């Protein structure tokens, strides 16, 4: 497909006997945000590094921005941007000096650079800090500068490794609004995250677990993988409630949160009534009980548990 910026097939990478990426296949279209979602050790960073051309793969094919990145990694580098978790900023260089350095590395012409620089700094509210040393910026500002440096040469594809990890919610929102604005400009963004709930912010997502692809598609499709739905029961003693709920028919999973019970069931409406009856008859008190949308975490756990039971059965 002509609007495919990334096309990966059978990608595998091993480190000293451990399989970090296991036969991974997925695509990314122009102007979309593709999320690489999964907990630590899922293989997200390794995948991004391979796509950035800085780590060789063992087998598979990877076409990035029209280039075969496995065979000719250098060819892809002028068209993409990679921002690792530590976003490569030079702390002893000023904001402007950092941007200029990357502009020169990517051979951005002077006029374009001046224009882009002004634009990017303005958009991130950093125009006042042009001459401040990068090391003296706050964490959020550093992140924005990192992105500005990544965008100075107007790449087709942006690879971001866990840009929201450890970030406060307000900065996280700002970051996502920056990503969405890029999408409006036609840039493709591949962003990795360990936050399962960020999966819903992406146009499509690649759910990963221990190096393999668990799911690839839209968030809506992902939710549909869960046969059933979820219920939320407010309670001052969720743990007691949990014990009463766990064995009930149709209950797939129960998690006691701080002040609520999160129940994954096969048939939400039916089980809602069923549980209400059960609690009423046994005199257990509970607060507001209603149907809620299943979370990505619910689906993740469901799919992984299924996989594990299947594997156990095969053995």
């Amino acid at each position, binding site marked *: 497909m002509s609007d495919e910026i990334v096309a990966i097939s059978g990608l595998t990478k091993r480190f000293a006997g451990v399989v970090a990426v296991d036969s991974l296949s997925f695509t990314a279209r122009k102007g979309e945000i593709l999320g690489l979602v*999964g*907990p*630590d*050790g*899922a293989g997200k960073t390794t995948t991004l590094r391979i796509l950035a051309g800085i780590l060789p793969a063992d087998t598979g094919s990877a076409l990035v921005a029209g280039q075969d990145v496995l065979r000719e990694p250098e060819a892809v580098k002028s068209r993409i941007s990679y921002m690792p978790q530590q976003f490569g900023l030079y702390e002893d260089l000023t904001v402007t000096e950092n941007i200029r350095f990357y502009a020169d590395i990517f051979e951005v012409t002077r006029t374009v650079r001046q224009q882009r620089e002004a634009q990017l700094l303005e958009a991130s*509210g*950093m125009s*006042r*800090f042009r001459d*401040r040393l990068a090391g*003296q*910026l*706050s*964490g*959020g*500002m550093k992140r924005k500068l990192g992105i500005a440096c990544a965008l100075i040469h107007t790449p087709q594809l942006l690879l971001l490794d866990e840009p929201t*990890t*450890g*970030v*406060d*919610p*307000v*900065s*996280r*929102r*700002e970051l*996502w*609004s920056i990503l*969405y604005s890029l999408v*409006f400009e036609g840039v493709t963004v591949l962003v990795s995250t*360990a*936050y*399962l*709930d960020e999966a*819903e*912010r*992406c*146009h499509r997502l690649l759910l990963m*677990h221990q190096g393999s692809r668990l799911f690839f598609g*839209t*968030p809506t499709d992902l939710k549909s993988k869960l046969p059933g739905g979820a219920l*939320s029961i*407010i309670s001052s*003693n969720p*743990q007691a409630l949990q014990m009463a709920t766990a064995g009930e028919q149709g209950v797939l999973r129960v*998690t*006691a*949160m*701080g*002040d*609520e019970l999160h129940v994954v069931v096969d048939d939400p409406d039916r089980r809602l009534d069923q549980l209400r009856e059960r609690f009423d008859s046994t005199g257990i008190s509970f607060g507001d009980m209603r149907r*809620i*949308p299943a979370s990505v*975490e619910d689906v*993740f*756990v469901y799919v*992984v*548990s299924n996989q594990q039971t299947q594997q156990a059965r095969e053995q």
Partner: protein
Amino acid sequence: MNRAPSIVVDKLMKRFDTFTAVKQVSFQIHAGEIFGLLGPNGSGKSTIIRMLCGLLTPSSGSATVVGFDIARHAEEVREHIGYMSQKFSLYNDLTALENLQFFAGLFGVKGSALDERIAWALKMAGLAGSERLLTGELSGGWKQRLALGSAVLHRPQVLFLDEPTAGVDPLSRGHFWELIHQMSREGVTILVTTHYMDEAEYCNRLALINQGLIVAMGTPTEIKHLAIKGTLWLVECNPLGRALAVVKQAPGVIDASVFGAALHVSVDASRQPLTELPTFLASHEVRVDRIELISPSLEDAFVSLTGDRTFSDESAQ
């Protein structure tokens, strides 16, 4: 559940030279409660924890942990608390058993209690029989449970958890929280510090901290409802860019942001967005495919309570 207060904090304040990290915070935690201090880096939560652990003396105010004053009896305080920080507490080049032995030694666990506690910790972590594995080679979930085990060898009454489940896969995380719930049932007070919203949802009560002050306190549900003025709606519409630009001008709309392929719009409670929003957007040539009421998340609450500029501070650190 024992309702006696286990941790009492009264107008605690800490100043470093000209910078006040903690500006008069007060709260009480009951025995067996899981309490969360939720705030970003630099909000003062780490300073509060250090004071409660007896590592820093407060500038003013007071606090007691299981009855001991943190300023005057710091040593006793430390004997009764356990501290777990998944990323930092274990030595990767020691085996699981060696780590447990080391921490047991640190806490003065001796004699028959020593063997019993170590066996318990290994069993709880699921490492019984694998105690000779190098800690560095364990995956996230195992390390997490081992760290928990090493923090409670001396049976503390209070347990401090510092971002204990960050990045760990959901199945392990669920398992971990079951262990915590077990401890809470036994009366251990658990104080969690984190800036991960989804971790905060596991707490019975939360205190949201920003720039040294508590901005809200209550159960997760209470905070969510406290923070969101009005109702929150999911709006799938096309084209998204234009929708975002115009929807903020719609009557009663408090705020709007993009979320995946849709908008999240918070609307004043007195309005009827189900009908009003599609009409308004249609008049600006935006088609609405779906509109649905959704529950606010802790993150929504957080953002709304702390506001844009006070939080994402532009000043230098």
